[in-house]
């Protein structure tokens, strides 16, 4: 990561697919430029992130936080569906699903 990464229009399109954001084609170059600048700036982290430094994922060193296997009240069906854009037969309705069976 010594070099400032260059982000291409195609990279942006790929990231947008992964992130499920239907970006207009005319915006890709602008995002590519901005992401490149930001990544160039943040890339400095590699200067000090040497192999001997352990990563920290959680700010507090807690472990083994568990919940008892005891039922708590669920939402009612009406509450569960209350914010949904589309419902049918007590379920969330979505347009047809592509992909696999």
């Amino acid at each position, binding site marked *: 990561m010594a070099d400032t990464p260059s982000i291409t229009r195609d990279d942006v399109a*790929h990231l947008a*697919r*992964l992130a*499920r954001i239907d970006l207009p084609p005319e915006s890709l170059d602008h995002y590519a430029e901005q992401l490149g600048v930001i990544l160039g700036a943040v890339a400095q982290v590699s200067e000090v992130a040497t192999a001997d430094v352990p990563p920290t*994922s*959680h700010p*507090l060193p*807690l*472990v*083994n*936080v*568990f*919940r*008892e*296997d*005891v*039922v*708590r*009240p*669920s*939402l*009612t*069906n009406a509450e*569960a*569906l209350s*914010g949904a854009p589309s419902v*049918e*037969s*007590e*379920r*969330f*309705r*979505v*347009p*047809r*699903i592509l*992909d*696999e*069976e």
Partner: protein
Amino acid sequence: MSTHVAETVVDYDDVVARFDPVLGLEVHVELGTVTKMFCGCPTDFGAAPNTQVCPVCLGLPGALPAVNAVAVESAIRIGLALHCSIAEWCRFARKNYFYPDMPKNFQTSQYDEPIAFDGYLDVEVETDEGMRTFRIEIERAHMEEDTGKTSHQGGATGRIHGADYSLIDYNRAGIPLIEIVTKPVPDTGKYAPDVARAYVTALRELVRGLGVSDVKMEQGSLRCDANVSLRRTPSDPLGTRTETKNVNSLRSVERAVRYEMTRQAAVLDAGGRVVQETRHWHEDTGVTTSGREKSDADDYRYFPEPDLVPIAPSREWVEDLRAALPENPAVRQTRLKAAWGISDFEMASVVNAGALDLVEDTVALGSDQGAARKWWTGELARIANERGVELHDLPITATDVARVETLVGAGALNDKLARQVIEGVLAGEGTPDEVVAARGLAVVSDDGPLLAAIDDALAAAPDVAEKIRGGKVAAAGAIVGAVMKATRGQADAAKVRALLLERLGVTED
């Protein structure tokens, strides 16, 4: 119904003569915890849609997960039973991908830090040289959460293709799953399908023995993905594998592996290359079809789940759980084999039929072990297979079978009647005694009706009667058969024979 056409395949014997298969099996076990993996919603099967959901398992903004202690304990116990090492420290990770049945659009799972790793499970398979033990090495067992259930509406088939829209029920979303992944399983040769089936069977028995899941394949509480690859010789590097999903019965495990071997062989023979992809097993047509090709879309962007803290099971906890494990299945089989005086092969039949618990329970209720095995691995296994369900899920219990055997032993039922009683129990007609009463299935022991039936039979076959009188006692079988038929099997054949010979004044030699 699907109309998938089988691709070109190669004859199985030809495949195994020229190719070396390598298996990989991924089994998902849905735990039988009272609540979900990360929230307090109940896990009851069959509840009304979207009534066992809350902000957490619906993935509503702001909600946070909290780990179910019993799920962690169950994962450790499964790991220990599989001779795995238990992680001293591990984390959950997020597996990021979009799918509408997954509320958060990431699955909270474990990635490079599974809670259990490096174990094995020995399975017995019948080979041409007798019973052989295959050691299946376990790579990992990790915790994750289930997805919701989608039903596809409209279109001609009710399947996803051609559907107009879909409806989602999130009751299942967040139910704890343990995923158990084998290392590549080499050296199974032509027994690959049998080994796959035996592994899933043994794993199911092991998990059932731990009491952490009901492991019902047809309800999806045990699911299997079968990975298969072929190579020319065992010294070649691993071939490209396919991952077959939707393999929802023991029989399907075997059939799907076998089919994939024959299909891949045909691809390779034609000079093609096997595509690394997900394939779907179709129980009805017995083929797999291409699902989704592995691609850069499978960049799951795993990272440690920041909303959950690491799990560091103390060694004391792990050792306590190890000490409290039920008897190891292998040890148990050795013990029962000795107690019942049966061979390795006979024990393997019991285990592979998924009948060990049932036979043991039936014997414990007083039945002869031979009779118990005969029922469970014979007639009942056949019926379960026909119905496409597990033996455990037939509507008959060890108590029922033991009762039938008691009635047989007392002479109240003969073999044929016993089958009818079993049939009645399976048909939901009640307990064995209720079936006997309702169907009037008692052995006819009153001499009067039997003698009348014998006279009718003799009158109908005077030539046979003459032969018997002439000393040809062997001919008596035909008359006994006719009497049995006339009494619809409700007579004791030995008694009919004795009465017949007495009637004709003949004695046995």
